[in-house]
């Protein structure tokens, strides 16, 4: 998973570096190992890894695009020409074409009209959400006509405009969230003009369930939906699968906490903080190799011993990918703490497929639910039961928040079905 943001300072005199630094820290939880910055350099655009001494000494630029990307797939995320650099939030083979459209549009008198016209032609093609910066210090941010990933706009006084994958970034940068862009909607920003444009949404447009489930921060709002509230509601829905008597509910840090709160709320079973993390921003699933993933899991899981000892525990997590996090948790609880029973509650259906849109990098070979049946998973994890949400549970929560979700990786390619 990746994320990006763009900044355009209308007024001069701003040093962009602290904004870039803190913006990147906000997006770090989304995974992505490469911090990339694109901005004007001389009379062209340059993109480079951010953070070394050299990038910091650069003269000030009015407009910047910054992204956290998967280092291994950077070529599918970025197209850089002399005049325009385009960065997308998921890998795409259409980026070259997009860069051509953007470059031509920015050379015209009415960039927003040109962008709208040419992106409209690609309405039913899977063009990802992107942001672009030009050598004339213009920014374009456009949300895929399929939706899938979010994009929000914010403002700071009379001085700055910001677009971002997450609203929490806008708030952390002391700016105010103006609104989210709709699928197919874009924004052209320069010193002399800000124009909204709309190239039309696809009838198949949906929001990635994984964004709400795992990727976004609890404090973000995605398409008007509070991520925290959404997670709590899914957690509440888990209550109907609680059949055994349990003494306490614990969530796997950090993402699973709102789900655990929801489950506790709907069942009346007390919620306990069962683990203390040693590393911050330990997003284990997003680590690119097994070793890193285990290091992250181990670092975020020091148990609070007395809360759990001798009890029957419901362990809540947002999803089960390889099962290795839950396996670690189960081992800890069973062998080191000595709990009586372990019941696992997963706040999503079974992950069975890779993401056809490249939003989430899932290797189908490593998805445990795609390869083992429930009984085998229980045995492997060494737990007393494993419970998943069903499709209809997710659908009713989605209805509650009036959003349409893509659940392709959960075996329901609702975007593709519309084809």
């Amino acid at each position, binding site marked *: 998973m990746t994320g990006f943001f763009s900044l355009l300072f209308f007024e001069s005199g701003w040093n962009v570096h602290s904004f870039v630094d803190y913006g990147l820290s906000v997006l770090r939880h989304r995974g992505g190992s490469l911090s990339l910055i694109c901005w004007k350099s001389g009379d062209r655009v340059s993109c480079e890894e951010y953070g070394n001494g050299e990038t910091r000494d650069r003269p000030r630029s009015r407009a910047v695009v910054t992204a956290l990307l998967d280092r291994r797939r950077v070529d599918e995320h970025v197209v850089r020409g002399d005049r325009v650099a385009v960065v997308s939030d998921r890998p795409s083979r259409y980026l070259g074409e997009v860069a051509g459209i953007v470059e031509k549009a920015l050379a015209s*008198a009415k960039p927003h009209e040109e962008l709208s016209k040419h992106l409209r032609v690609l309405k039913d093609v899977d063009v990802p959400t992107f942001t672009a910066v030009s050598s004339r210090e213009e920014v374009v941010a456009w949300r895929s006509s399929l939706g899938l990933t979010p994009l929000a706009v914010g403002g700071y006084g009379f001085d700055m405009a910001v677009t971002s994958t997450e609203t929490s970034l806008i708030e952390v940068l002391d700016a105010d969230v103006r*609104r989210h862009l709709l699928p197919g909607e874009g924004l052209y920003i320069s010193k002399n003009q800000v124009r909204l444009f709309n190239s039309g949404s696809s009838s198949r447009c949906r929001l990635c369930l994984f964004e709400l489930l795992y990727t976004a921060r609890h404090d973000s709002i995605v398409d008007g939906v509070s991520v925290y509230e959404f997670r709590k509601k899914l957690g509440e829905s888990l209550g109907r699968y609680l059949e055994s008597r349990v003494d306490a509910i614990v969530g796997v840090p950090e993402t699973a906490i709102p789900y655990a709160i929801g489950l506790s709320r709907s069942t009346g079973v007390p919620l306990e903080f069962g683990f203390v993390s040693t590393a911050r921003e330990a997003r284990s699933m997003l680590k690119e190799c097994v070793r890193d993933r285990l290091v992250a899991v181990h670092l975020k899981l020091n148990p609070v011993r007395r809360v759990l000892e001798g009890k029957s525990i419901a362990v809540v997590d947002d999803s089960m990918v390889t099962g290795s996090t839950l396996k670690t948790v189960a081992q800890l609880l069973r062998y080191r703490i000595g709990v009586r029973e372990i019941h696992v509650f997963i706040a999503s259906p079974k992950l069975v497929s890779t993401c056809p849109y490249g939003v989430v990098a899932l290797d189908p070979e490593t998805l445990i639910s795609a390869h083992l049946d429930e009984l085998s998973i229980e045995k492997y994890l060494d737990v007393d039961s494993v419970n998943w949400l069903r499709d209809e549970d997710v659908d009713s929560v989605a209805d509650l928040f009036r959003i349409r979700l893509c659940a392709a990786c959960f075996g329901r390619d609702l975007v593709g079905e519309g084809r």
Partner: protein
Amino acid sequence: MKVLLVGSGGREHALAKLITSSQMSAKLYVLSDYANPGLMREAELSGGKLFVATTTFPENVVKIAELVSPDLVVVGPEEPQFHGVVDYLRERGFYVFGASRRCSSIERSKVFARYLMWKHSIPGRLYYVAFKSLDDAREFVKYAGDVVVKPARQVGGKGVRVIKDTKAFLSEAKHQVKSEAAFKTFEEISKYGDVDYSVLVEQRVDGVEYTAQVVTDGSYVLPLPLVQDHPHAYELDLGYETGGMGCISGPGHLLPFIDQGEYETTQKIVREVLERLQEEVKERYTGAFAGQMMLTGLWGPTAIEYYSRFGDPEISCLLPRVESDFLEVLDRAARGALSGAKVGVSDEVVSVVKAVAPVGYPVSRDEARGHPVTVDVEKIRGLGCEVLYASVELGSDGRTYTKGSRAFEVVCSASSYEEAHRVSELAVSYVTSLDGWPLYHRSDVGSSELVEERIREAERVRRVYRSKHLRGTLGEFFTVWLPGRGVVGNPLLSPLRWEDEDS
């Protein structure tokens, strides 16, 4: 009745329409800084004439007044007031609607306006500090926190820098910007030389802005419906401060996000300022007066600044809503006989005004200037809207050219914002440039989406000020408790810089 209108832009065009639609069969003469084709047409249709001369030279204005010998002179903009045009005319026996030089100091000097509010403990006042020298301003800014840096003089509604500073980790970058803003402001103000102070540093507040306009003859105050202006240049409230890219008004005297109690508090503030101002300057205030207000968590209704005239484009918003004879109101105010006058307003009708500007406004005016533009007035009227000519002038080839500021205002009204917004967007499409130079406007002004956003924002600040009211802390702000030194109650100071000073 002969009326001489002084001023050149969209506000004057709105006034011209209000004046010429009077039952008093007005013959309108206009003295304008440039040949505004809209004003020219209004004058000629009424049997009058447009004169071009610099409106800030009192001699020019008096010369034309003596030529026309009007029954009433209406001075629209603030700069002629600041230059004593109104006084000059009154000394020569003309009836004038407009603030005298001394009365207009409530707008000219933002420091005076603040001082007046503090001197008389008028609610809705903000903390401020003003500087005459750049060094003092820069020294102070070192310790400044969450503040607004403003020019101490009115400079066409521009130059304000809102430097929100609520996150310590970004404070360093903001400190730099504040210092540069103080420098730029100082440079700008030194061109004028009619105010003591240059730089005003003011407590930053946020909330929902609105304008409360009134007409007064010095004793009787006649409130007009509230209007909300949109100062950001671009869509979604992004970008530079402008004189206003559009406004909304109605239903009734309120706005969808201001309640009756807040309206009354606002009127009380405006009345009290008018009263104290007249005491202070020892002159009668005759003309339009407006409070640029904001509903804030600190106070509820809060004064950001004052206008000694009608707002531009705020007055345009009232054009389709005023039902009674507005010229009669202006005339009675000028003659000190306003008592008992009323302005009838169509309560059920709301209005949406959109300014159309050439790209380049407000910061690259040279680029924005000199483009031929055209308006399909009939098509716009066909939609039930009006178009007002603002910063445009008649070229020698008979075409209309942009002058670099907001070129036109489209004025629409309907029974709902949804409908007024819809037609305003259509109306705007009939304003076009003839040389391909892009024009822009804000499509979000008047949209239900934006109105609803303002309602939510107002609800947020309403919870804050009501709670402060109950706890008796309205207007008070506590910056930081420094052990051993107590609570610092000066919201202009940054808690960070105080620490720095200690170490």
